[in-house]
């Protein structure tokens, strides 16, 4: 069995990162890695409802057009005092900050879950098919 993994109906959730969570809320959905305002607008056109967005920095406040529609945000750097954490709280969605994810592109379009853990901490899980896990 994968480490820190739990069985899901059609796959398993594997923990891929930990960080600090801006609100004690669980969120799950398709992850999109965005780095520019244009990509945010593109996501808005495609439909951002229920998606989870992964960004590089915690000062990334260009997410405003989609924040009301997102299920959550994951950020590679930053913490609870970063502007992104403050703004996402205004929209009542969790942001998992300071995750140190090294290959964000690999998570793009994967199904993920943000889950609160002990205290202010949280974890990011990615859903994998059972045959991918050894």
């Amino acid at each position: 069995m994968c480490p820190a993994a739990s069985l899901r109906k059609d796959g398993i959730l594997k923990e891929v990162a930990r960080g600090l969570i801006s609100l004690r809320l669980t969120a799950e959905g398709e992850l999109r890695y965005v780095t520019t305002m244009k990509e945010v607008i593109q996501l808005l056109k495609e439909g951002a409802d229920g998606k989870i967005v992964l960004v590089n920095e915690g000062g990334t406040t260009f997410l405003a057009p989609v924040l009301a529609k997102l299920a959550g945000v994951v950020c590679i750097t930053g913490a609870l005092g970063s502007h992104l954490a403050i703004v996402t709280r205004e929209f009542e969605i969790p942001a998992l900050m300071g995750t140190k994810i090294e290959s964000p592109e690999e998570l793009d379009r994967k199904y993920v879950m943000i889950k609160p853990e002990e205290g202010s901490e949280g974890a990011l899980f990615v859903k994998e098919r059972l045959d991918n896990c050894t």
Partner: protein
Amino acid sequence: MHIVQFLEDIQSDDFENHGGKAVNLAKLARLGFNVPKGFSISSAVFTQMVKKNQDLTSYLKKVDKSDDFEEILGLSESIQQIIDNYRIPDDVVSEITKNLKHIEQAKFGFAVRSSATIEDRRDVSFAGQAESYLCVQGEEDIIGSVKKVWQSAFSDRALVYLKTKSIPLVEVKMAVLLQEMIPAEISGVMFTANVVTSNTGEILINSTWGLGNTLVSGEIIPDTFVLTKRPLGVIQQVLGDKEFTSKPEIYNLVITDTPEEKRSKFTLEDQALFDIAEVGMKIESSMESPQDIEWCIKPDGKLVILQSRPITTLSEPSYREE
């Protein structure tokens, strides 16, 4: 009406002229908290620029009417250009330069900071939407930075934030704060309530070495501490990587890799945390609501308050609470 007003002269009802950041800092200065010396350039100067310029007014109206974010991005570029080309009236420039001379010991230059009327409200933070410029020296660069702060009120990200919050652009009035630059040893953010759990009996602190710009902009992972208020105690601490350190030098801001021995060490020990928390609780009491406070520690160990605004998000989340 004064174009320029020193912090200690700004009153609580000057919100429309000097914006949330300046009014809150002025109140703290009057109450005796340690706030960097400085003054605010009234939002009336910004409003005058908007009113004088018909093209700018027309573009702002177009943004207000549009629901197409791509169109808004294009309009933002035109708005930026118009403000860039604007020549600040001579009497305003003269008033700013005259007052700069009254601020002593600005060895590391000035922080040129936004103080919008829609900023730091109880319901809207506008956090990170407008820009601040640090270690700015010389009259020409200071005037240039004032214009850049004005531009940032209508940057692409600010415009879409304002649209999303249904705030008409005509309501945006940008005052600009000029304050002495503090050569901080340690900087941080303190929430006088735990914003993660909405527990008002706890305090949450982020801190890093040097200036706090790398922290609020989220470029680094700072140290995180959760404290109880009564009795004061540390209940959680998470070491951050603090990858970079931002320090002011005589003529500019320098960002360097943080040495390994400082990355692996907490920025604050318990007593320093308690001292900061005590000040936070006093500010919370003075401002009559839980606060989101930016602070720094000077080389002489004194705590300086850089910003205080109400926490906008303490109501209980309405769904999926764990």
